[in-house]
């Protein structure tokens, strides 16, 4: 989230699209309700289902699952055609004036951008850049009239997305669409802001990243980013998924969103050159220009004295990847027998990954598998997935280790608002339960001993790894957080030679990091969480001086305790607030500095001309975003399994660069056999495939069910509460049917489309048992974020034989 949870209360319009916060984030959704209770904000939900968010919304629009991009294109077009955008913001803070190279083009007939290689299913993204001047700065047209400027290209790209098209693709009546578009358009006024809330309803598409991109375009056009009550709220699914993402527990990342090196980055310099962008606009802060400082400090944190200038700060110790190995590749490699071992800590990956049959077969081919968990999760008993798997024939050696829950441990969690919060251990461990720190340390010490004793390939990174904790076999969370915060390896001196930070002292901010090996920092974005004065994540100050829901002294928000990202954008080009109502950060001409309710997201004394989007080389937001692999403008494609043809470009109906696999288990369904659109989702009573082990949630929603329209049930002779069999090309399951008018049949491209909703939370282990939803889902992945397509695949529904059980 760019602004955090409490800021939602400052919104004038809360648009929920691609999420269901009332159910998935109830305590966060309070702030949307608060916005309405406090100042009459409207809540609008665009979702296939009348879910519990829609139940309390001011407006619910039923949309066909998987057609959101057409809807978003329609809104962008509406905003552009009707001049609802905030022009001054667009001119000053986006790349609208930037001139795009003429190698970029888009063919509306095929739906392809320039540079597509159909064989490799890839684009040549280098064709999509800006036109540069002699100073290597992007050329601009401040009047936005050049047909090659990003603004005009945006306008051109989306002019096809008429309300009529939206109705045809999405099944949303033109009038309803226009009503919502009008409400959204109104937030283009400088004193109005829209908060958009989304979650996996948008990411879990084969074009998920493009969906979020389309909202970025819209919010930038409306001038809603960086102002109180205006944001794109990515609502994440777990208590610390933000933290584990920050940490770079991701194949292609390192802590703090540093990029992991690839094989082609043979030297440290090559790596740094590749990932240290150069500013392409005057007075762009280009914060990633500091990449060398962050990276070198990380290497110092990991390998300490072994990371020297001479050995490129142990650059070789890091693995260099060829292709990223995220879930898609891990599971596919497992299935193809290329994976020997799997170590899972607190995740039920069998149940939560698509095409569970494929995953289970993959697991049966492993040599070993370790699960550390609180409960006997399904993954640990993967052979129960299907009758075809005979445990007697499965040679996988498995461990199920007793873990500790969050309430039984110290440490920090980071929420969607990027707030790092300290936790204090509650009860003592039961039985022989142990936490992950202990398990990792015990394994590390054993591995180190083994490598010392037996040797092995390239043991240095293991032997020389920093593990200087007070008790190396069981480090405390406190000392690890200090390591992440960073400290001075040598005395740090300022220009005049005064010692600013003494050797060994903790750093107060990532601004103190150096690229010469004199600082160590395990996680640059958390810099400042543990300054010399103490652990700021444990701070409990409850004051909100601005009344805007900014609690600067409650815990610590990365980066630098900033609560709203890009907050410089809350003031106009000259540094004056856009409106008195949305006053947040402004330029004080007297002191020549930025002042306001938050830590400025910009050098505090940098002049107003500095762009607010400091993490972009441009310093401004991107309408035209060449970094995304399927094109710089989000384009509407159908889900990989869809009941209707692509209305705009039938030749390329789906994302041309989608990640798909071909195996006996990667089969796709066609509408003749599987005529109904299915989507999977959570209900508020459950947490993924986990709370089924808990009495409270298991009682609150005990049985697997699906939601289906009354009309479809009638056709199929299904009554409310009947047991039904849901099947896809990949598998099938039984569930209770909830027959409801909350699921409306929609008319798309002249066809009646029925949608079937499938909540996910059940499996074969636990108190609440039921069908494993991911037996149905396709192994199809978004090419940018590598999220699977769980929303919008094809199924069939029949009354279960044997009737009500």
């Amino acid at each position, binding site marked *: 989230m760019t602004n955090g949870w409490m800021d939602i209360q400052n919104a004038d319009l809360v648009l929920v699209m691609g999420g269901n916060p009332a159910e998935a984030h109830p305590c966060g959704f309070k702030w949307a309700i608060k916005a309405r*209770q406090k100042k009459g904000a409207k809540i609008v939900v665009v979702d296939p289902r009348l879910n519990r968010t829609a139940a309390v919304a001011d407006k619910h629009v039923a949309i066909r699952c998987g057609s959101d991009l057409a809807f978003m294109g329609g809104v962008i077009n509406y905003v552009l055609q009707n001049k609802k955008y905030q022009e001054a913001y667009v001119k000053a803070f986006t790349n609208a004036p930037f001139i795009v190279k003429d190698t970029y083009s888009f063919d509306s007939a095929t739906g392809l951008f320039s540079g597509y290689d159909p064989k490799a299913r890839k684009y040549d993204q280098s064709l999509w850049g800006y036109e540069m001047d002699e100073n290597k700065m992007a050329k601009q047209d401040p009047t936005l009239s050049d047909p090659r400027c990003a603004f005009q290209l945006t306008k051109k790209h989306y002019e096809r997305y008429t309300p009529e098209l939206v109705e045809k693709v999405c099944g949303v009546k033109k009038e309803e669409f226009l009503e919502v578009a009008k409400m959204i358009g109104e937030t283009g006024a400088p004193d109005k802001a829209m908060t958009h809330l989304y979650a996996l309803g948008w990411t879990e598409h084969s074009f998920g990243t493009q969906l979020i991109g389309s909202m970025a375009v819209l919010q930038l056009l409306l001038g809603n980013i960086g102002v109180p009550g205006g944001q794109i709220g990515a609502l994440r699914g777990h208590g610390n998924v933000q933290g584990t993402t920050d940490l770079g527990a991701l194949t292609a990342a390192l802590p703090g969103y540093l990029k992991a090196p690839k094989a082609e980055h043979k030297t440290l310099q090559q790596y740094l050159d590749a990932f240290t962008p150069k500013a392409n606009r005057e007075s762009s802060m280009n914060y990633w220009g500091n990449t060398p400082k962050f990276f070198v400090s990380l290497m110092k944190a990991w390998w300490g004295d072994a990371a020297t200038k001479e050995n490129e700060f142990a650059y070789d110790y890091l693995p260099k990847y060829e292709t990223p190995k995220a879930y898609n590749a891990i599971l596919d490699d497992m299935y193809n027998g290329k994976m020997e071992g799997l170590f899972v800590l607190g995740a039920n990956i069998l149940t939560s990954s698509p095409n569970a049959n494929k995953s289970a077969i993959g697991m049966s081919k492993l040599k070993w598998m370790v699960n550390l968990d609180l409960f006997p999760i399904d993954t640990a008993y993967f052979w129960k997935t299907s009758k075809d798997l005979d445990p007697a024939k499965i040679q996988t050696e498995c461990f199920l280790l007793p873990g500790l829950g969050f309430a039984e441990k110290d440490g920090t969690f980071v929420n969607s608002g990027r707030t790092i919060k300290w936790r204090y251990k509650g009860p003592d461990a039961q039985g022989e339960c142990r936490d992950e720190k202990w398990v990792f340390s015990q394994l590390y010490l054993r591995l180190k001993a083994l490598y010392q004793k037996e040797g092995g390939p390239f043991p240095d990174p293991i032997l020389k790894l920093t593990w200087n904790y007070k008790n190396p076999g069981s480090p405390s969370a406190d000392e690890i957080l200090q390591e992440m915060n960073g400290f001075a390896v040598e005395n740090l001196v300022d220009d005049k030679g005064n010692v600013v930070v003494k050797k060994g002292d903790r750093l107060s901010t990532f601004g103190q990091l150096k690229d010469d090996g004199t600082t160590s920092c395990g996680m640059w974005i958390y810099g400042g969480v543990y300054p010399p004065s103490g652990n700021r994540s444990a701070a409990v100050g409850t004051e909100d001086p601005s009344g805007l829901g900014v609690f600067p002294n409650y815990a610590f928000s990365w980066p630098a305790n900033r609560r709203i990202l890009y907050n410089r954008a809350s003031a106009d080009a000259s540094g004056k607030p856009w409106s008195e109502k949305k006053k947040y950060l402004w330029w004080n001409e007297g002191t020549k500095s930025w002042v306001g309710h938050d830590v400025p997201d910009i050098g505090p004394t940098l002049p107003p001309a500095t762009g607010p989007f400091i993490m972009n080389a441009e310093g401004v937001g991107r309408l035209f975003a060449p970094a995304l692999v399927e094109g710089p403008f989000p384009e509407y494609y159908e889900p990989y399994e869809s009941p209707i043809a692509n209305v705009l470009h039938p030749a390329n109906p789906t994302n041309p660069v989608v990640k798909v696999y071909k195996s006996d288990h990667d089969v796709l369904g066609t509408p003749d056999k599987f005529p109904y659109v299915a989507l999977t989702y959570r209900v508020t009573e459950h947490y993924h495939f986990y709370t089924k082990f808990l009495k*409270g949630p298991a009682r609150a929603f005990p049985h697997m069910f699906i939601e289906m329209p009354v009309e479809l049930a009638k056709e199929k002779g299904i009554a*409310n509460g009947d047991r039904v069999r849901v099947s896809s090309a990949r598998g099938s399951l039984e569930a209770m049917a909830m027959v409801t008018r909350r699921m409306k049949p929609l008319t798309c491209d002249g066809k009646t489309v029925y949608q079937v909703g499938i909540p996910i939370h059940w499996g074969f282990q636990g108190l609440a048992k039921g069908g494993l939803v991911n037996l149905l889902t396709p192994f199809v992945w978004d090419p940018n974020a590598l999220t699977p397509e769980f929303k919008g695949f094809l199924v069939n529904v029949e009354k279960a034989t044997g009737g009500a059980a």
Partner: protein
Amino acid sequence: MSYLTSGSTTGLAIRRMSATKEPVLDIKDQEQLGILVDISSCTGCKACEVACIQWHDLNPPIATEEELRENGFSYQSAPDLAANLFMLMKYQEAETDRGWTWFITKRQCMHCDDPGCLTACPSPGAIVQYANGVVDFDQSKCIGCGMCRTGCPFDIPRYDANDHPFKCNFCLDRVGNGLVPACAKACPTNALHFGTRADMVELGHKVVAGLKDRGFPNAALYDSAGVGGAGYVYALPHGDKVEHYGDLPKDPAISSLVHLWKGPLKWIGGAAILGSIAAMFMHLVTAGPKTVEAHGKEE
């Protein structure tokens, strides 16, 4: 750091008791407590239901598929309230002037100002209404007759195997110690407001006015006038469709049969029994026994 270190006890005083003349004693005047259920803000997440179970250490069973079908399969977690389930979220759907609408309602004891259960209860002191408005059962005095549920206009108490009734007690231990009831504290979306009843009614009227402005012309405050008002007050977006809100009775009131039975019939009954005894006594004294001798003499 927690409320445990911040407050003192509020104490509890009894206002009236079942089968006992009132007021019990002219004791300290406590403000009546209340909870406002703002249905327009309720997402039906069941946090209140689960928090209630947790705080009271209840252990309701996991409902079977068959039980869930009983009253029409919906998001409702159990077929009915139970001795070990003090509150239940109910989910109904119907057409309204705003299209197809999901009616989500929290149902539990309303803590009536004039409680039907207490009126109907024959056992002195088994049902207690505290000065703060909370209506609770004293199991030690309960005789298990089942009249409390019969007398309740909201059909709330449920019985255990020993015929003892159970229901929401407004977290008497919590409010008695200055804490917020478990459900109201848990509610994530500010749909449950806790305070004095007077404040809740006032707030409820504000919420209703706001709803009317937002395009709910039939919004209404459900304040159980028939039982003198209740601790629980509901702001209903569709006040014209009360019956869809978890089967809330339209005009809740203690049945006239209860009054007939606890009033006139009691007097008539008492008079009849005592009158018969008196009449027989008079007969004995005036006419004397019907001895055989008496007859014999006549002969």
